């Protein structure tokens, strides 16, 4: 009996953070709706969802990487890179499917390169991905000559502006990615190993698991997620911008951390990331609608990140003392 009770208690504790996040999200929606009649319109909701979709896709990959105790700063550049590959392939007459495949493959390979340098080169992921971030962006600027690449077919732009019933394609794609991410992290051996790498890499290695290979693959998955986000961004604008995705890595990290994934690794939550993503985007959109300057938005995002880390640290300590 008491066992059952303690288990229910524990379950509530486990999800309490997610419930807090959900409460914050709802409170924010209510407050902004009251402040502005435009906010809760269907058009604006779709807009928020579309915008969130892009962030959500990279945040899912980031959640996996951070769970493994690593960081990937290159996702913003990879968004631009995959878009550029897709754009250039399309311009040279490649079918949309081929262009997309090439773009996604390139982003996956950049991720694998990150992972290989971290796992086999035994380098710090922060430094490795900071380097690939600037290298990839440099390559984009050189190859595109700092010009936008455009001229896609309708089959390609459908990904950005098409819809399945009332739901826009970006949302459909992002939810599929989030679902797959959640299954990978919480239901598979691979996800378990990712968390364990973050928790105690030495222990995992000692038990005979090929840690390095898993580390490399998780970066590959994160790269692929960034590639998918790049595909959505490019298709929405019908143009591959050389500076697309710049700074997005920060939002992805913010979403993952706010969502309850531990920066130290070993603990991750996709559902938390999803809600956190919506919180950040509702906030951005709300501030824009209330015509508050984007400079203030930046300040606020920073504060939210600090506060969320404080909350999650406090939450951890609380749990340990129980």
């Amino acid at each position, binding site marked *: 009996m008491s066992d059952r009770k303690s288990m229910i208690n524990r379950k509530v504790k486990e999800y309490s953070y997610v419930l807090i996040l959900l409460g914050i999200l709802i409170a924010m929606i209510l407050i902004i709706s009251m402040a502005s009649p435009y906010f809760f319109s269907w058009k604006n909701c779709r807009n928020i969802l579309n915008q969130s979709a892009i962030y959500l896709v990279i945040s899912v990959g980031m959640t996996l990487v951070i769970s493994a105790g690593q960081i990937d700063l290159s996702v913003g550049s990879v968004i631009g890179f995959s878009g550029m590959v897709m754009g250039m392939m399309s311009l040279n007459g490649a079918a949309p499917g081929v262009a997309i495949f090439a773009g996604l493959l390139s982003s996956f390979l950049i991720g694998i390169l990150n992972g290989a340098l971290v796992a086999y080169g035994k380098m710090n992921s922060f430094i490795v991905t900071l380097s690939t971030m600037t290298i990839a962006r440099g390559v984009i600027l050189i190859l595109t000559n700092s010009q936008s690449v455009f001229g896609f077919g309708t089959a390609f732009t459908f990904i950005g502006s098409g819809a399945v019933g009332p739901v826009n394609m970006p949302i459909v794609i992002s939810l599929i990615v989030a679902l797959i991410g959640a299954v990978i992290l919480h239901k598979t051996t691979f996800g378990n190993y990712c968390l364990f790498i973050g928790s105690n890499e030495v222990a995992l290695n000692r*038990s005979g698991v090929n840690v390095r290979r898993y580390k490399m693959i998780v970066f590959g998955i994160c790269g692929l997620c960034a590639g998918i986000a790049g595909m959505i961004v490019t298709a929405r604008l019908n143009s591959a911008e050389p500076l697309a995705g710049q700074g997005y890595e920060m939002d992805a990290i913010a979403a993952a951390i706010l969502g309850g994934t*531990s920066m130290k690794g070993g603990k991750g939550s996709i559902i938390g990331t999803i809600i956190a993503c919506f919180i950040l985007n509702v906030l951005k959109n709300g501030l824009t609608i209330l015509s508050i300057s984007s400079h203030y938005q930046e300040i606020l995002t920073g504060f939210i990140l600090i506060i969320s880390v404080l909350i999650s640290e406090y939450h951890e300590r609380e*749990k340990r003392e129980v």
Partner: protein
Amino acid sequence: MNTEERNEKPFLETRELYKSFRHVEALRGVSIRAYGGEVLAIVGDNGAGKSTLIKILSGVLTPDSGQIKINGKEYHKLTPKKAAEEGISTVYQDLALGNTMDVASNLFLGSELSTAGFLKKKQMKEEAEKLLKDLDIKIPNVSVPVGDLSGGQRQGVAVARLVHRGGKILIFDEPTAAMGLNESEAVLRLIRRLASKGYAVILISHNMQHVFHISDRICIMRQGKVVKELKSKETSMDEVVSFITGSVLSE
């Protein structure tokens, strides 16, 4: 020597192990035997060669000369993999657990139950509960993170994992270090229980009370040699300490 009285074969036997690191002779001909169902304590001052011996047994270090006999099979050196296959398991001091991961994940680490990469979480939980129950390790809920458990419970999880992976000889290196009284009591009981279930247990400890409390035999090492082997029941703490410090010379 008392071990000669036995007619059963030792599960693990080392003969004349030598190992030096540059000019330091860490082991100078160490021969020990460990039997199933028995707790063998290895004691000695710092630098006596205990750790080197353990590392050789778990395959981390290669001896310069000498043999290791496990279950009748003779080896000149072991690799960590080979040692594990032969059932030699070391419970490390740092425990080698993932504190943010739940008990079941830790127990099955490296040998998860899965189909096509998908974890069978429910089955793992049930088997983990059964495994812990068999070893009489009390953990209320196998889905809590290991970091939320007490030191003794964590030690229990680490042991259960080794047993699950087919460990037959369990080496404990200072298992009660940095533990409270109740905690160490629980760990000592667990060690005793393992021996009574037929496992061969080797215990390294500086704590003479613990050693006398649970060991059957005591092997005293000094300056890279086994200077004396005594039955715990037939000796006293003073005698053991005098051999450790070298105030009594061995035969």
